[in-house]
């Protein structure tokens, strides 16, 4: 479907730039941050079998890009793609983060969970209402935070030992409540991180959206392999009904 260019960030981090599959289609003209694409190089044949889901990092005339970190077999191979290699992409998939122009909005990102927020920040009409708190293990330079910090207030917190994690959780405990009255909290990151956010927000009666990163096969709601527990609807597909859920809708 598309062809390929790639920009290496530090070490295990890459921006994979693909030819835009269909910039003029209504779906793509209206895509919003939080949505994702499934990415699968043709050369994989049937191994790995599934495409890999990635948040849309950027999508414009110049191409479609995702920002990813090597964590396993699939991402390792993605990092080795060469320009010209054919890649199948389907999307934009899933739903999007809420935008409350005038509400103080707290963005909480853990590690590669920062990816969907780059465009969110870029697009937000009132960046002064936004604050980003970012927890990470590799050096902050690995992530595209600097660009975001040009527009909004960013605080980052690096975990290098278990004690740092406690510090980060304490930090979350301090910032989140401020956004629980009339604000909005958006979070994306690893499961334990999302659970912490869910707990703190619940304790303070706030509104938060969590973006889940469940393992996916089809990406379109057909296989029911990626479901999470929705309090009212039972198991729902994260790929089709999510990946963004209101924190109080779901149980982990």
């Amino acid at each position, binding site marked *: 479907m598309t062809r390929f260019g790639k920009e290496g960030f530090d070490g295990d981090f890459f921006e994979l730039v693909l030819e835009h599959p269909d910039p003029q289609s209504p779906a793509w003209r209206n895509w919003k941050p939080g949505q994702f694409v499934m990415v*699968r190089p043709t050369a994989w044949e*049937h191994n790995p*079998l*599934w495409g890999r889901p990635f948040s849309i990092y950027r999508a414009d005339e110049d191409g479609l890009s995702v920002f990813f970190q090597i964590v396993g077999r699939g991402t390792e191979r993605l990092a080795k793609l060469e320009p010209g290699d054919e890649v199948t992409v389907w999307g934009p998939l899933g739903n999007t983060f809420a935008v409350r122009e005038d509400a103080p909005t707290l963005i909480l990102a853990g590690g590669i969970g920062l990816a969907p927020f780059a465009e969110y920040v870029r697009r937000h009409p009132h960046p002064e209402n936004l604050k980003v708190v970012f927890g990470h293990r590799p050096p902050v330079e690995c992530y595209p935070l600097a660009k975001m910090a040009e527009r909004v207030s960013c605080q980052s917190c690096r975990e290098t030992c278990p004690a740092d994690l406690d510090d980060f959780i304490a930090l979350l405990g301090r910032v989140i409540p401020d956004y629980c009255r009339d604000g909005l909290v958006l979070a994306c990151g690893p499961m334990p991180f999302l659970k912490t956010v869910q707990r703190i927000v619940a304790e303070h009666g706030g509104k938060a959206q969590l973006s889940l990163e469940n393992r996916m096969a*089809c*990406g379109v709601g*057909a296989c029911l392999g990626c479901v999470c527990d929705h309090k009212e609807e039972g198991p729902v597909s994260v790929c089709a009904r999510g990946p963004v859920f209101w924190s109080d809708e779901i149980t982990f």
Partner: protein
Amino acid sequence: MKVSFGGLSLKNPILTASGTFGYGLEYTRFGELATLGGIVVKGLSLEPRVGNPMPRIAETPSGMLNAIGLQNIGVRNFVEKRLPKLPADQMAVIANLYACSAEEFAELAGYLSEQPGVAALEVNISCPNVSSGGILFGQDPKMAARVTEAVKRRAGDKPVIIKLSPNVTDITEIARAAAGAGADILCLINTLSGMAVDARTRRPRLANVIGGLSGPAIKPVALRCVHQVSRAVDVPIIGVGGIASAEDVLEFILVGAHAIQVGTANFIRPDFVFRLVDELERLCEAYGITSFDEYRGSLRL
């Protein structure tokens, strides 16, 4: 590309496999459903079911495991909310039936037999028979025959497809039982019983521990089953298991299948099955195959 068998008439021999194509509607943005031979929808039970806990899927070499556990919206929801949106007059919408007793199967069949949009009933007998302590219907010829009869009795004029499990000592025995009990068509194979674990965390990769193996990895097993069954019974066969190219489609027809289903390959790309229809046409041309009836079962032994 038209094929007719066992009371089914399809535009082409390409169907989608149950559980891998949702209710069809999930794929309308990736292709024209009406170009397919048909679709088999996710297993339907009398009541909605929530399925198994997560994780439910795991990747394996050239394949995958699933333990979805038959999550579905229930047969009535399907008929009322999804079926009307499908182009059922232009391709076959086949309902896949899931139940835990012959009576439930019969009830499902009775209800579906009255739905004009349903082209056929596919009975998934790879499920535990609760009244026999969890043995699968599909692993015992007598139970397989009982379910077949029960469904057949209530299916009206809908062709009844019995979908066989490969997890048996002799699949021809089950096939004969189902055929003897009146199955119009046999579909094989369902998934192989398998499992995956994480050596580091010491946890199973599926919450259900054991799941069903599908994908290209199992194609040799599926082909063998179709080959054996097509020689053992006189009932048309739908082949399924690991099909991931037009070449694969022909292989199944070569060993005796009238039609095929594409399952796991739908996850390779969402427009996979739509492209497959075109590819099959091109490949038939390249190989000089002008009639599936001539080609079918023409394996040179």
